[in-house]
């Protein structure tokens, strides 16, 4: 009888502790109005603006052009910010960048985009050098103030320099050549669902790009479309 009484008292105490000590179950009373956003959300909080390589004279040799030629030892413009917001608290994500097509001028001229030479013309890098973003930087990704969860997102095309007018800034990075068939993985934040250590908050990096203009390229106004894709990546 004594043992059963102790068990009874222990059970009552355990339950009261659960109910009274800021239990997460108590917090569920606040969730009664949630009827749509059941599993949190994953979205682009900020997307880099259109890249512009400016106007150049037809070169006699393959020439690099930069989207941010004036940034030689400072921050990228804030418009080059790429920010993912994850409020799910579970599961991971990836961000990829793909070229929809080659650079076309609307006529017959083309600047080919491929991840193999000699058409490896368009490259992208990421960098944490951005103005006015407060948070903690790990491996090229800024985890903005208020972020919680594992800081394990890999910026796979990350550069450690902040000179975006140098060819080497773009050629010293691996797997950063844009292609029309295979996307570049820019951010890899894959997580397992079972780990229970998902992320909540904003993750930011800056972006910059370089385009090689082939020798004797025909004159024209060249454009292409790049697609940023944000996907759940949970294993």
């Amino acid at each position, binding site marked *: 009888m004594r043992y059963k009484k102790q068990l009874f008292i222990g059970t009552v105490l355990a339950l009261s502790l659960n109910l009274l000590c800021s239990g997460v179950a108590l917090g569920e009373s606040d969730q009664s109005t*949630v009827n749509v956003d059941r599993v949190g959300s994953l979205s682009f909080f900020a997307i880099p603006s259109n890249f512009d390589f400016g106007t150049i004279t037809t070169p006699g040799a393959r020439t690099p052009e930069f989207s941010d030629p004036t940034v030689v030892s400072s921050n990228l413009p804030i418009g080059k910010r790429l920010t993912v917001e994850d409020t799910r608290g579970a599961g991971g994500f990836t961000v990829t960048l793909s070229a929809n097509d080659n650079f076309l001028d609307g006529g017959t001229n083309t600047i080919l985009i491929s991840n193999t030479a000699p058409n490896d013309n368009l490259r992208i890098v990421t960098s944490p050098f951005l103005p006015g973003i407060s948070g903690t930087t790990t491996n090229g990704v800024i985890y903005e103030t208020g972020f919680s969860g594992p800081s394990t997102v890999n910026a796979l095309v990350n550069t450690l320099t902040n000179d975006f007018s140098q060819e080497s800034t773009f050629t010293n990075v691996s797997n950063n050549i844009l292609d029309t068939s295979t996307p570049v993985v820019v951010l890899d934040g894959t997580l397992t669902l079972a780990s229970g250590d998902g992320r909540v908050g904003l993750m930011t990096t800056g972006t910059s790009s370089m385009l090689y203009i082939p020798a004797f390229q025909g004159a024209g106004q060249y*454009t292409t*479309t790049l697609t940023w894709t944000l996907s*759940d990546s949970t294993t």
Partner: protein
Amino acid sequence: MNIRQRLVISLLMLMTVANVTFAQTSATQQTSSTQQSQTQQTPPNPQTEQQKGFMMFPDDANRILPYQLIYELKPGETVHDTLVLQNKDNFINKLFIYAVDNKGTDGKYDLKNSDEANTNKLVGTWVALPATTVALQPLETQIMPINITVPQDTPLGDYVGGIALEKRVPAKDYANVIIASRVTVKVNIKVTDNPQKVPKFSDLDYKLQQLYLPLSIWIFIIGILYYLGAQKREKHAKKHHGQKH
């Protein structure tokens, strides 16, 4: 200890275990609710407002990978489902929505771009959407129905594709690179002759979670009262027994 006491103890123990279990399953919802309330409380100011984007996710999430769509279907079978589309911006977002094949190899999830044809006649063509464009009003949430039909002659196996919600930024100032951004929901379909039901976070779970707190408080109060009553009865019985002797 009589049968009633045992029953109360068992109930209390069950509630204690359930408390922990429910707390774990609802951990992700707490954060999402916080986010939603923050979004709704932000005063609209289109002039200075930072872009916050848009999102898409399954309406009735499954328990395996809640942010993806998972089905087991027979050849020729059709399934109806819904997606939630949300605009987090304080301005209208005009978006494109489309289903598309996966072009990744070796298990990679690389969806085709919007202008690539679904030549493989796979998941990208199996998904039927009611519209190709959608205009989301500021902070609006829309539910979009989807129908997925596996063609009758589809070989058994696992298939992957996706549904993309995409924003295209129009070219201006002679920019050389036009930007499109999209969020996707991965669609995993197992075509089998013996499809199993994919477990979902059904409405029953949410109702149970909402009922859980008042229910546990009532059982807690009843348990305490019953315990105090039992103590009193026991003391009374001992006293009565002592008096007899």
